[in-house]
């Protein structure tokens, strides 16, 4: 799906017939007694670039943690490629093709860039495939290749972001989850970072991005949801969301228009 596809009100009409690659069905998640996610329904189709918007403490990161199985939902189901994985471990879900680029990059700082990439392919055993994907990452980010033997903690923020994305790609995922890719980066790098995400998406990956920077995220996304205190309050195409008065008021502010 290209970003300039005609805007429609019903989400993802082209894929209506096909199965979503990732689906949350009526998910409720608690941290202790605190109710974080409230009846969240999401469906992401193959080849999409979608985003989940929300302010602080709206449950964005919890959504990602629920998808990866690092927290288990109280009720509801997580469905990956048609398989219900609600009770499966993170390990099994990663093996099914979902990987996360964590918030703030969070590289393994005292390991080298090369070792970080290896960690991305932790569950894979196909040496040839891993080597191919390594080359692919180097092609995407020539800078990463130059820094291969350097400790990840000594890289600049932009380089770390590249390694973080590269590390996730090394798992050869079907769906890439991105937790606040713009966080902690200089404005010039944020722009570049979103271009990177778009580039990766165009290479055929489904990308699910969680962001606070709604303008930026919607400028490259196909569709989006808005999460407010754990509930999905808006669900629309990117163009419609950008124009939506509520979103304008709550996240984008008037100054940024």
């Amino acid at each position, binding site marked *: 799906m290209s970003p300039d596809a005609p805007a429609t009100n019903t989400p993802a009409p082209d894929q209506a017939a096909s199965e979503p690659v990732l689906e949350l069905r009526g998910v409720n998640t608690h941290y202790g007694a605190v109710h974080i996610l409230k009846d969240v329904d999401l469906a992401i189709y193959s080849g999409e670039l979608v985003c989940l918007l929300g302010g602080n403490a709206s449950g964005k990161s919890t959504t990602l943690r629920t998808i990866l199985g690092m927290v288990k939902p109280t009720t509801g189901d997580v469905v990956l490629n048609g398989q219900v994985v609600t009770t499966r471990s993170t*390990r099994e879900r990663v093996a099914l093709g979902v990987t996360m680029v*964590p918030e703030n990059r969070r590289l393994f700082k005292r*390991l080298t860039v090369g070792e970080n990439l290896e*960690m991305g392919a*932790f*569950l894979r055993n196909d040496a040839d495939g891993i080597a191919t994907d390594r080359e692919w990452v180097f092609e995407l980010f020539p800078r990463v290749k130059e820094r291969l033997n350097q*400790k990840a903690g000594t*890289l600049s923020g932009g*380089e770390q972001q590249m390694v973080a994305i590269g590390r996730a790609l090394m798992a050869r995922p079907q769906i890439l989850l991105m937790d606040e890719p713009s966080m902690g980066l200089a404005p*010039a790098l944020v722009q570049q970072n979103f271009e990177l995400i778009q580039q990766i998406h165009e290479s055929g990956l489904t990308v699910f991005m969680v962001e606070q920077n709604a303008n930026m995220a919607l400028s490259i996304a196909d569709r989006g949801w808005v999460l407010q205190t754990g509930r999905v309050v808006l669900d629309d195409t990117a163009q419609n969301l950008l124009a939506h008065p509520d979103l304008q008021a709550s996240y984008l502010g008037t100054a940024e228009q």
Partner: protein
Amino acid sequence: MNMIEALTAARPGSGKTRAAAPARRRLLDQDWRRLACAGAVLAVGQVFIALTGMPVTFDRRLLIDPILSLGYLALLWLPPVVGNWVGREQVLEGMAAYAKGGRDVVAGAMAGLLGNLGLTLLVLGITHFDVRDPLVHWSPQLLGILEFDQSVWLGALVWPAIGAATGALGGAMHWMGDKTARTMVLALSTVFAAAVLESVIVDLSQGFHIEAVSDWLYGPQRGLTLAATAVIVAVAVAASAGFSWARAASGRTAPQASAQPDAAGAGSLPAQTAWRRIPARKLLGWAFAPAAIIVLPLFLGRLTNELLANVGLFILLALGLNIIVGLAGILDLGYVAFFAVGGYSVAVLTSPGSPRFDPEIPWFGALFAAMLLAGLAGLLIGAPVIRMRGDYLAVVTLGFGEIIRILLLSDWLSGTFNGAQGITNIPGVEVFGLATVRGFEPRSVLYLVLFFCAIAIYVSWRLENSRIGRAWMAVREDESVAEAMGVDTVSAKIMAFVTGAVLGSFSGAILSAKVGSVFPHSFAIIVSIVILVVVIFGGMGNIAGVVAGAVVLIGVLGGPNQPGLLQEFAEYKILIYGALLVWMMLQRPEGLIPSARRARELQANDVNQDAWLRAQPAGRATDDAGGTSDRGRP
């Protein structure tokens, strides 16, 4: 104000160079604070060392026969170090290089003089006041040493003079140039090593039947003779000169040469020359080292073998803890528990003196039981604490370490462990009818220890480069992200606990057979702390570092229940551990031997973080060569 006179006297010398480099900091204008600070630090340090009692305790241990005892050395080493530090200035990029010169010597002398005024005050203080009540070493013996058994005034006046002289020597090291300074440090440390290692050298020369050498080196009262000292200095100087000549001839670039562009000179051939040389040398080393390790104990005496066996026991422990702390990043303060499990399992199963389990089994059988039980203990301790993180986990492991000791001591289990009386009469190790390892034959123990060290090193090395090793390191760096990458963090951490526990139990099992008895108090918390210090000091997560840490700390200073080379230091062991640890954390937080990873990083030498941002508009790949070569040029 004779200090100011001294300074003004020094001005003409530094004045000449100042004209050439106007941006340099000047002693008179800005460095008073630094000098005062150094003097104060030195004074406090000297008085502290004097009052710990080291000069008194070490007084009888002669280093160089008639003139220098270890006691005086305890007071002599600090002024040159501080004198050197006070003259040290950073070379700032973009600033004129700071000129070395006479002012360094003056600054060192003044710092030494100021600092040793502390000892003068101490001499006068001891003569006039009596505060022995809180300060045990505020004593006539200390006074006697400080006044050289002469008069109070001699002591009071000589110490500042000594401080000035030794401080000036420290300061002069900047002035005399790197090569001379390095030669001097080499000569001094060789003399120190030769003097301190006296018992080992005597032991060795007896082993090789060259007693004549040790008889010539050391005087009748222990300590190097003056002639031997002179020869050692001459040999060190010659070796240093020969080494730098060889280096210049082969054209190898040392890392420090590239750090100082003007010193590189002849030695700046391309790095490939150095690279190609490595394999052959390494190969030789790989073949030679194990052979030497196997043959050497035959020539060593009881004392050295015993010492090395103790070091080996701690290498085993440290390697085990290294897996838990260094690789998996779990701060375990109760590691002694696994040592105890190993020791007591063997004791109960092999000793006829153990209250229960009458059919005694051979040591190797007991070892398997010990490994099994230690692994089980690792599982039991690991499982509940594994979901905790950081501080909480450390506190809980601390508790478990104590629980094991208290269980061994308890009445409840005294039917098995014999309470505070411990288990005695543990037989030696029968090695398949070929040999017997017994405590009173340190050589046999050493071979057993070496065998298990080899196993432990191999296992550690394989694990470090394995899948589970990478999982451990990922968990250490960032547990949540490791989990998101598909690492089963819970089982990885439990695996680390179990592996570490099994390695630790080897050490306990050997200890039982070596000593012939085990007691609960041998497994006190201090053992955990010492093992942890060894790991941190040597370099966490690095096998060579951990081995080096054990050799230096346990071999030289001694373990919690074992004497080291410097038996004199036994009383001050923990103090020195602490001081070394603080110094290490400040100067080399990566430990004695930084991991290979760090070395590689330094080799790459292209930390050029912002080039990416700068190069952005012009196309990234082409621009960074220029960016890298810009560095280091003012």
